[in-house]
């Protein structure tokens, strides 16, 4: 594999006619990517490309209220376990719609990530490695964008949708370089700068662009460099995204879809994720906040899973109906689970020693369940895995070889933690 070497001081970061385009797409321009033929994107839509969707339940969702219920035990809490579409597999009663789609999912119930810190837990889950001094590893989104994405993609390959602000997470790409960093769509909306300001006519914008090109060409005649080429290219990319701005408009889906996904932020964000995946984006991460329920865990899980369940089920249905599920890996993860012990505030605290992850779609054996925890959920008793195993599994599921290397600065770095391996039991 070729080395990927990027300079953090890339001029791409200064390319900022519009914040969104200037940062995210500008980064792509640094590498001198070629054109953005829509034919390529269409080809991927036809099924050639693999995509990844991560639903990140921010704060640490309780495995006991979701994928590994323990009703009737001291740690089980007040909820029932309900049967699913997979005989013998039960989930928490707060997931009635997801339960009906369990034949599209697999469960890993023996996850032990051994770190109860939010930030480190998230890093571990998204990179598949424990933090190490001297090196930062790329997030799954960056790896997917790098290894699955097309050079000619019209849209960024690594998009994050969350409740916070918009921006560009170049650090998520680590040594893969800012081209594969995450483009954050705060509250599911592209920054308003994506669209031409109302006061700027199309004609005026074109004349302004012509002037920029003229000045740019004059500059390039005497001082042409890779950086200036990238700088210029980023504008062309921005223009292409500008022309596809409609992808970000979930309003185009109509009221029926809005109703199916739920008229709340998370529903809207999942609907946007589906549109982005359809439009050829390689990796989308949708965060749902918040599950950090040290206080009143049960009330808050009613509220949060009440938002999660229906749109997630709708998304699975849509991906399946469109023939996309077989080429889209879907992962539901958190930074960790929550304590089996219920505290005096009716809360559950952080618990990384025994929790669960759900996967489905591309490369995943439908209905599989691997790993087991003890009767009260305090420990893993069978097939313990960590984030490294999961990371291998994600990559294998989408047809990649996680045992290959990246070569930042000519030094081999394994794509996934070499100490781990894929969870073969849930792979097709």
């Amino acid at each position: 594999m070729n080395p990927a070497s990027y300079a953090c001081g890339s001029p791409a970061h200064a390319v900022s006619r519009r914040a969104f385009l200037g940062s995210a797409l500008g980064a792509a321009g640094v590498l001198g990517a070629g054109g953005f033929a829509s034919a390529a994107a269409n080809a991927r839509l036809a099924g050639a490309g693999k995509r990844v969707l991560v639903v990140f339940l921010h704060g640490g969702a309780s495995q006991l209220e979701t994928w590994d219920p323990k009703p009737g035990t001291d740690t089980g809490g007040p909820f029932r376990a309900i049967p699913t579409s997979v005989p013998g597999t039960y989930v928490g009663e707060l997931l009635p719609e997801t339960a009906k789609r369990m034949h599209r999912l697999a469960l890993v119930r023996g996850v032990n990530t051994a770190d109860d810190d939010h930030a480190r837990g998230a890093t571990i889950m998204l990179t598949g490695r424990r933090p190490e001094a001297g090196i930062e590893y790329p997030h799954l989104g960056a790896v997917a964008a790098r290894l699955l994405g097309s050079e000619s993609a019209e849209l960024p390959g690594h998009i994050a949708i969350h409740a916070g602000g918009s921006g560009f997470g170049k650090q998520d790409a680590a040594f893969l370089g800012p081209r594969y960093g995450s483009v954050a769509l705060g509250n599911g909306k592209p920054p308003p700068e994506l669209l031409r300001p109302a006061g700027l006519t199309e004609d005026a914008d074109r004349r302004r662009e012509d002037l920029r090109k003229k000045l740019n060409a004059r500059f390039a005649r005497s001082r042409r460099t890779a950086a200036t080429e990238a700088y210029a290219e980023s504008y062309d990319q921005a223009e292409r995204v500008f022309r596809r701005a409609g992808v970000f408009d979930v309003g185009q889906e109509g009221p029926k879809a809005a109703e199916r996904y739920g008229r709340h932020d998370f529903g809207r964000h999942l609907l946007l994720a589906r549109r982005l995946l359809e439009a050829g984006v390689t990796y989308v991460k949708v965060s749902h906040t918040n599950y950090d329920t040290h206080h009143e865990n049960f009330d808050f899980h009613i509220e949060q899973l009440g938002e999660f369940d229906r749109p997630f089920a709708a998304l699975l249905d849509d991906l399946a109906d469109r023939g996309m599920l077989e080429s889209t890996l879907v992962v539901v993860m958190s930074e960790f689970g929550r304590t089996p012990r219920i505290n005096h505030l009716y809360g559950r605290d952080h618990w990384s020693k025994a929790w669960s992850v759900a996967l489905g779609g591309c490369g995943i054996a439908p209905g599989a369940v691997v790993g087991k925890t003890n009767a009260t959920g305090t420990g893993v008793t069978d097939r313990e895995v960590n984030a490294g195993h999961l990371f291998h599994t994600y990559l294998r599921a989408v047809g990649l070889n996680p045992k290959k290397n990246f070569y930042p600065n000519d030094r081999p770095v394994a794509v996934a933690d070499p100490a781990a391996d894929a969870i073969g039991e849930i792979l097709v």
Partner: protein
Amino acid sequence: MAIDPVNARPERDFKSARPLTACRFDPTGRFLFAAAEDCSVQRFDLLTGDVAAFTGHRSWVRGIAFIPAPGGGPAGVASFERGRGALAALAGGPARAAPPPPVRPFLVVSTDYHGRLLWWRGDLPDCGPVRAVDAHDGWARAVAVNAAGTVIATCGNDRLVKLWAAADGAPLRTLDGHDCHVYNVAFHLAGTRLASADLKGVVKDWDLGTGRCERDLDAKALHKYDTGFSADIGGARSMAFDARGARLACAGITNVSNAFAGVGNPLVVVLDWKDGKPRQLKPKDAFQGTAWGVAFHPAGFVLAAGGGNGGQAWFWKGDETVGSHTVGLPASARDLALSPSGERFAVAGANGVASVYSLLPGNPRPTGPKK
């Protein structure tokens, strides 16, 4: 005997195997019923110290109420009075004077987080539930019985308030109007109105004759949408009318700065039932947590208890809006019950202990706020 908050002192503890979620005295004051996280309802006999478990719920119980014995006043009050000597003996007083009186039949109703409403013979702890109704879709959060003992009201996460015939469990009426989880319900003593309170602090005044909501009252200080965590927190965790039906108290949490860590302050909102005006009652000392139980004492003061960073009981006399007395509790209180005589109160502890406190004059024992 003068009953005064400053007399409050621990009288006795009843230990359960699991953390408690609710507690109520039966109408005689002899028994304290407490629900636990093992889905049981424990019956603690204050006369004998006996403990009995009522098993039949499959989820946690937060609602407990009683159907008074037909044909008059609360069953067994006289028996309780006769047994007071024995109670005093158990509390460290003179030797037991007489054997405990027989228990007259009475019914207990309880609601759980699977939406079930169960009836029990309170005097027969080993017989299991005598009736069960699937009352709500999702949690049934509270239950109340009217003064005549004929109608049961329940409420829950299906946003509904439901009325049931106490005698046979027949559904009588569904009151539909809340737009979020309904946390509590209480009958007005006049018998024609019912109050219900929801997560957002909206209190509805229902006409039981027509089933119409006549007005909304404002206890919204007990609610917040925490934008940091994208979640609602609040609700009337406890609700009680005073003896004249002139005031309605709702207890919960306010000033929430971090819903998921429980960072906020306990608050009691007292609504003037006539004009609906709210009045906020706050603890005397800074405390982080939730008020989980509230009651009007016949002597004229309001008491509440709760938990968070420890447990406390708070007292407000007369028109006080800032409490004048605080009692430190050994653990977070998840409910408060006042005995029918007003001589004692109990709290359901997150440590699994139902603690009974006396309000009668006696040898004072330190009860200051726990640090």
